[in-house]
C-alpha cells in the first residue's frame, strides 16, 4: 500500500496540460502540412531541406541574406530575374549553382510563410517529447504512441490511487467503527466495467476504422526489384529527364516502365558502374552496379563483347514489381497532370532523385488526391499570353477575376472534386 493520497486538483492539472499540449501540436502541424504540399509541388524538384541540390539547401533560409523579410523572399520567388538584376547575393547564388531559379508567379505571401514553416519544422532535429524511451530508434516521433503510453500510465495510476483511496477509507471506517456494506471488488464494479467497455469500444472502433481506411493502401511500400535500379544515379546524379524513360507520362494515362530497348539506348555504351557513389540496399548490403547492368544485358540478350550483333527484337521483358497501385475504379491520367496540370513528378512520387530503391511516398488515398485538387491552381489563362487557352471557356471566372472577386482558379473550381472526374 502506498501511503499517499493525491489531490484531485493535481490530476486535473496533469490532464489539462496534456490537452493544451495536443491542441498546440495540431495548430503547428496545420501550417507545416500546407507548406509541405507547396514545397513538394514547387520546390522539391530543385531544393532539399538539408542538402544542396540543384539549388541551395533551404534549412535556415530566414537567417540568410534579407530573407527574414518574407516580402523580399516573395519578390525573389515571383520573379527571380527581376530581383537578381540589382541584388548581388542572388547573383552569387547563380554563379555557385550554375543556373537561375525558376520563377513561380502564382506563389503568395501565405504560401511563403507556410513553406518557411515547413522548412523550419523539417530542419529542426526531432527529439522525443515524452519521457519514455520506447520510441527512441524512430527518426520521427510518433506522438500518438507517446500520448497513448502516457494516458495508459496515468490511467493505471488513477486506478491504483482510487483503489488505495477506497482501501484507506475502509481502514478509517474500521477504525472509527462505522459499519458499511462489504465493498464490491473492482472487477465486479459496474462503473469500472462500463468505463472499460466504453474505452474498449472507442479504442477498438478507432483501430478498426483506421485499419479499414488503410486497407489497400501501401504508403512506404518499397519492394525489392529484379534489378537494383537506382533513380538516384540516373535521375539525380546523371540528371536524366524523367520523361526520357517514362515518356508515357507525357502522352498517356500510364507513365509506363521503359522497355528494355530504352535502357539499352545508353547501356550499349555504359557497361560498368565505377564512378558513382557506392550503392546500398535498404538492409545495408552493398550493391555491385556492374553486376546489375549485367542483369539488364541478360534480359536484352546483349553481349558487351560483341555489341554489333545485338538484335533488339530478341529482348525479353523484365518482370518489375509495381509499386504505385490504384484501385480499378479510379481513373488516373499521367498526361493530364504532367502536361495539362504542369505538376512535377516529385509532387506525388517524392524526392525520387534521391532514392535508390523507389518507395511509395504518398498514400494515394482519395483524401490525398482531393486535397491537392483543392489547393492546386489550374493553368488558367489569366491574360491572353499565359496559361492554357482551354480555360477561355470559363467566362464567369474570367469576369470574377477581372472584377477582383477571385484571384486564382483551382482544380476544385472547374469541378475537380466531382465524382466523375476520376470515377467512371
Amino acid at each position: 500500500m502506498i501511503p499517499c493520497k493525491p489531490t484531485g486538483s493535481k490530476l486535473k492539472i496533469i490532464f489539462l496540460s496534456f490537452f493544451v499540449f495536443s491542441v498546440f501540436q495540431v495548430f503547428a502541424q496545420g501550417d507545416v502540412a500546407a507548406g509541405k504540399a507547396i514545397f513538394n509541388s514547387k520546390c522539391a524538384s530543385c531544393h532539399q531541406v538539408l542538402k544542396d541540390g540543384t539549388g541551395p539547401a533551404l534549412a535556415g533560409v530566414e537567417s540568410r541574406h534579407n530573407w527574414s523579410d518574407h516580402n523580399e523572399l516573395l519578390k525573389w520567388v515571383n520573379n527571380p530575374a527581376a530581383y537578381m538584376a540589382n541584388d548581388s547575393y542572388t547573383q552569387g547564388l547563380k554563379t555557385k549553382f550554375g543556373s537561375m531559379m525558376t520563377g513561380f508567379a502564382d506563389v503568395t505571401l501565405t504560401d511563403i510563410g507556410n513553406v518557411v514553416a515547413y522548412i523550419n519544422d523539417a530542419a529542426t532535429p526531432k527529439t522525443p517529447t515524452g519521457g519514455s524511451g520506447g520510441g527512441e530508434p524512430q527518426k520521427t516521433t510518433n506522438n500518438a504512441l507517446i500520448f497513448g503510453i502516457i494516458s495508459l500510465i496515468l490511467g493505471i495510476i488513477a486506478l491504483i490511487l482510487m483503489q488505495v483511496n477506497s482501501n484507506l477509507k475502509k481502514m478509517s471506517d474500521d477504525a472509527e467503527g462505522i459499519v458499511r456494506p462489504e465493498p464490491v471488488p473492482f472487477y465486479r464494479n459496474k462503473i469500472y466495467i462500463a468505463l472499460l467497455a466504453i474505452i474498449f469500444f472507442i479504442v477498438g472502433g478507432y483501430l478498426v476504422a483506421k485499419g479499414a481506411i488503410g486497407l489497400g493502401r501501401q504508403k512506404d511500400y518499397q519492394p525489392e526489384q529484379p534489378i537494383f535500379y537506382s533513380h538516384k544515379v540516373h535521375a539525380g546524379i546523371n540528371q536524366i529527364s524523367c520523361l526520357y524513360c517514362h515518356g508515357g507520362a507525357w502522352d498517356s494515362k500510364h507513365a509506363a516502365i521503359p522497355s528494355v530497348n530504352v535502357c539499352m539506348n545508353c547501356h550499349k555504351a555504359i557497361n560498368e558502374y565505377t564512378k558513382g557513389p557506392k550503392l546500398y540496399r535498404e538492409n545495408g548490403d552493398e550493391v555491385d552496379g556492374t553486376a546489375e547492368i549485367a542483369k539488364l544485358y541478360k534480359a536484352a540478350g546483349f553481349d558487351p563483347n560483341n555489341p554489333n550483333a545485338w538484335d533488339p527484337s530478341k529482348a525479353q521483358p523484365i518482370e518489375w514489381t509495381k509499386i504505385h497501385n490504384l484501385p480499378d475504379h479510379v481513373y488516373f491520367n499521367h498526361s493530364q497532370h504532367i502536361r495539362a496540370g504542369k505538376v512535377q513528378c516529385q509532387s506525388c512520387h517524392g524526392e525520387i532523385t534521391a532514392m535508390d530503391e523507389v518507395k511509395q511516398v504518398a498514400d494515394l488515398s482519395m483524401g490525398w488526391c482531393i486535397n491537392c485538387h483543392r489547393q492546386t491552381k489550374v493553368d488558367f489563362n489569366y491574360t491572353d499570353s499565359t496559361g492554357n487557352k482551354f480555360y477561355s471557356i470559363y467566362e464567369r471566372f474570367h469576369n470574377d477575376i477581372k472584377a477582383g472577386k477571385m484571384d486564382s482558379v483551382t482544380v476544385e473550381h472547374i469541378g475537380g472534386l466531382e465524382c466523375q472526374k476520376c470515377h467512371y
Partner: protein
Amino acid sequence: MSQNKYWQSFGEVNDPENFKKMAQDEFHEELPFESFDDKGLLDAKAPRRDFLKYLGFSTAAAAIAAGCKIPERKVFPYGNKPENMVPGVAKYYATTYVQDGDVIPVLAKVRDGRPIKIEGNDLCSFTNGGTSARCQASVLDLYDMYRLRYPQHRVAAATDTEPAKFEEFPTFEQADKAIAEAMTAAGGTTVLLTSTIVSPTTKDIISKYSGLKHVQYDADSYSGMLLANEASGFGKKLPSYNFGAAKVIVSIGADFLGTWLSPVEFAKGYSKGRKIDEKNPEMSKHYHFEGHLSMTGSNADERFTHRPSETGAVALDLLSMINGTEETQTIKDEKLEEGIRKAAADLKAHQGQALVVCGSNDKNIQIIVNAINNAIGAYGTTIDWGKPVNYRQGIDSEIEELVAQMEAGQVGTLMIAGANPSYTYYNAAKFNAALKKVKVTVSFNGKMDETTEQCEYAIPTHHYLESWGDAEPKAGVTSFIQPAIHPLFKTRAYQTSLLKWSGNDADYDTYFREYWTGKLGSDGFNAALQNGIKEDEATSGGGSYSGAGLAEAVSAVAAAKKGSGTEVVLYQKVSIGTGAQAGNPWLQELPDPVSKATWDNYALISIPKAKELGIKLNNDYEYYPQKPLVKITVGGKDLILPILAIPGMQADTIAIAVGYGRNDASGVTAAGIGQNVYDLVQYNGTTVDFAVSGATLENTGDKYKIAQTQKHNSYENRKEVVRETTLKSFKASPTVIPDFSNKLEEDFYNNSGGNFRGNATLYPDPETRMTELRWGMSIDMNACYGCGACVVACHAENNVPVVGKREVLRYHDMHWLRIDRYFITDENDADNLKGVVFQPMLCQHCDNAPCENVCPVAATNHSSEGINQMAYNRCIGTRYCANNCPYKVRRFNWADYTGADSFPNNRDQQIVGKLDSVIEQMNDDVTRMVLNPDVTVRSRGVMEKCSFCVQKLQAAKLEAKKENRMLQDGDAKTACQMACSADAIVFGNVYDEASAVAKTREENKNRTFHVLEQLHVLPNITYMAKIRNVDEDDPHWGGGHEGGEHGNEEGGHESEEHKADSTLPSATHVEESEH
C-alpha cells in the same frame, strides 16, 4: 372521330383498369419471402440464429479477405517497344466489316494491342460513318471462345449421339500436304463454294486457280432481282439506290432500313428525306406494303398489309394503276386497293423523285417492279446503274446444279468459305447427303458451324480484324481491310490456302500488298490503307431499261397460284440476320425493334389469329412471359413455336425469324436458342421463296417463356413520353409543344410568382450550379428507326454486361440505352395500326434529378457540367434511385455478371438464382479482352446507368488542354451518336451557341420537347417529336380538348396541370374519355 391510342402492351389497350392495378404491383411474380406464420420466428426455415451465423461468417470472411496481404503486382514493359505505340493511348485503324455481303467501312479502336470498339469510317461517301448493330457487335466475335483455334481433320464422323471428332494438324504445312495428297487422289472437279466474294484480290486469286469452279451462294438470296435486272437490260447486277433523292418511296415488303441489301447506306439516305426543316415542313412520303410488321414498315407513313402470296398482285396492280387503270385487277381488299391507288397517284406525281423497292425473290415480280421504276423515272435519278453493287450476287440455280453434281459424284473436292449450307440451305439433309459423296471436303469457316462439322478438313480463317484484305462494295469503291491485332489463334487466311494449293507459294498478305502497290504505287497504297477507302468516279452507264420480259412476267404473276390458309413468311431479324453472328451475346440480347423480344425466335401472329386460336390478349398475356406454344404445319413439316401477337399483321400471315436453332458447337450463346426454319424455304425452279402458304395452326395449350424487354419499363401511365403527330396537323398548329412549355411556366408564375426552371425546386437554380460547359443531347424521333446499333455500341463502349435470357425474364436486363416501341392504333381497334414510334430512352441527366436526392450515400449526384454522375464504388445498392427515376433507366447489378467481384466465383449463388452459361462465356479470359479499360467493370450490388460516355468527354477535354486550345464542337461524341447511321442523335455543349446541339434545338423549337416536362426534373436530353407524313388531322394535337378527369396526377398542382393538359398533345385524353 375516334382517337389514337399509344400503347406498349396489350393490357394497356384491352384492359386498362387491371393494367393500372398490376402496374402498381412492383413484383409480378411470387416473391420467395417466407411468411412468418403461427410457427414463429425460430421455426422458420431461416431462423434468427442462422441469420446471425451467416452474418458473423460473412463479416469474418470479409475481414479475412480484406485483411490479407496486398498481392504483389508485376508489370511487364515491352522488350522492344514498337515505335508508334504508347500504352494507354488508343489507335484507330481503318478496316472493313464484311459479313454475309454486308460491307461497312469502319475504324477499329485498338487499345494496348487489342481492338475494343468499332466506329464507322466517315470518309466513306455512302455510309458516312454509319454502322449497324451487327457491325458494332462484330468486335465481340473476334474474342469468341468457340472459334476454331487450329487446323484440324476429322477422325470420326458424327453419329446420332456423338458429335464429329476432329484432331489437330500441328502445322499448316502438314495440313497442306495431307489435303494436296487427298485432292490428287480424289480427282474430279474442284469447287469453291462461298457467299458472295466482294474482294477484288480474292476474285483474282480464284480466277488464277486453274480448274477451280467457283459457286456463290447467299443465304438471303437476291437471285430474283439479279435475274429480273438481266431481263430488263441491266445485266445480272444490282444497282445503287439513292433514297435521299426520293420524295416518294414505295416498298413492297423490302425491309430496307433493317435487313434489305445495304440498310446502313439506305438509312443514311432515307433520313435526308425524313428530317424536317421547320420553316418549311416537308418530308418524303413512305408507303409500305407487307404481310408482317417489319422494322421498316413500322417507320412508314402509310402502311398496308397483304398476304405474302399477293406480293406479285400488289406490284402488278401498282403498275397498271400507274399506267392509268382505275380499278385494281386482282386485289379485292378495299383498304389495300385504296393504298395502291394513293401510292400510284403519288408516284406518278413525283416523276424522277420516286422509288419503288421490293423484297421479293421472285424474278417476275422484280421485272414488274423494274417496269414501275421505269415508268416513274427512277432510273438515273433514284436508282443508279453507274455504281452497281457487288454484294449478294449468288444465283439460286447454281447451288442446285452444284448439289446435283455432288450427288452424281462428279465433285472431287469441295471447299467452303463464308457459307453454311448445312444450316441455311432449304434442304440441309439433301446437301449433307450430297456432301458425303464428295471425296475431299474442306471448310474455311471460323467456327465449327453445321457445315464444318460435316467436312473432313477444317482450316479456320482469320476474323476480319486479324486480316489483310479488300472489299469492293460497289463499282469504283474499294474499302481496305488491315489487321488490328495479331491472329489470336492458329488460323490462316483462306486465300493463302487457295494460293498454296494452286501452286503459288506467296501468302495472301504479300499477294494483296503486291496487287495494290502494283495498282496504286507504294505511297498510294499506304494512303488508301490509312483512309481505308478509295472512291473513284462512276464507271459506266450500266445499260438501259428494256421492257422485253415484261409481258411474260405479267402473265406469270397474274397466273400465279393464290395463297390459301395461313401463310408463313420467313424474315431476318435486325440483330441476327441470317444467323452468321448468332453466337454473339450482344446481338442475342438486343431486343428486336418491333417485338422487343430477346434470345428467341417465335411466330409473330395477328390479333385476329390469336383470337381464332383462343388466346386472350389481356394483362396476363403481357405480364407473364409464358406465351402459348402453337403447332404450325406447313409443306408436310410441322414445328412447335411460341407465338407473339402484334398489331399490324395481315390476319392470316405469321412471320418467323431465320437464324436460330444452331448446333451445339457454335457455342452456348446460340446453341438451342429458338428453332431453325430454313427448311420451310421453298425452291420454285428458279429462285427460293421465303414465304409459304397453306399452313395450319393449332394451339397446343403448352406455354413457353419469351424474354421481352418492353413492359417492365412502363411509365405508370404517364403517356406524355411520346409526342408525334401528322404533317398536316403540325403545319396547321406548329407551336403546340412550345405552347405546352410556356403554359407550364405561365401557370407556375401565376401561382407562385417564380420561374418554372429556376424556382420550382428546393435547391438553388440548377443553372447557377453549372460551369460554361454543359452537355446535352437532342434525339430526332423522325430519324430513329429502331435498328439498335446505338444499343450495341453502348454495350461495347461502356462494358455493359450481358445477363442472359433467364435474367431478362426477371427484368434484370442491363441496357443503359433502350429503344422504346409504341404502337399508335385506333383506340377502339388495337389492330388498326397507324404508326409505330421508336424512342431511344437513356438517362436524361436531369438537372433536378429525383434519383440524386434519395441516395443515402450521395453515390449519384450532379456535376457542374450537367451530368448526373454515378460513383459505383460509393453505391451501396439501396435501389432508391431506380425507384424514383421516372424514366426507368437505372440498371442494377443483381448478380456478378462481369466477374468484377472481390470474391471469385461469386456468380454461383443460390440466392441470385442460376445464371445462363452465356455469363460464363462473357467472363472467359479471351472474351474479357473486349472490355474498355477506361470504364470501370461494375461488380454485384451496384447501380449503373448512362454516363453520357463521360470517359470520352474527359478524353476530349484533355486533348484540347494538351493542344492548348478551346474545346470544339464535335470533339466529344457519345458512342450511341457515332453508331447511328441516320444521325438521329446530336450531342454537345448546349451553352455553346454554335454547337450542333444548340443549333438543332434552336432550329427545331416547335418539335423539341422534354419527356415528362411537367415533372420538373429538367432533363438535359431533348427529343424532337415524330411527324408522320399523313394528310390527316390528328385530333389530339393541340385540338382544344377540354380537360375531364386527369388520369394520374404527379403532385399537388392539380389545377395547374389541368390547364396545362388542355394543350397536352398526348394520349392521356384517350384514357380520360374511357373513364
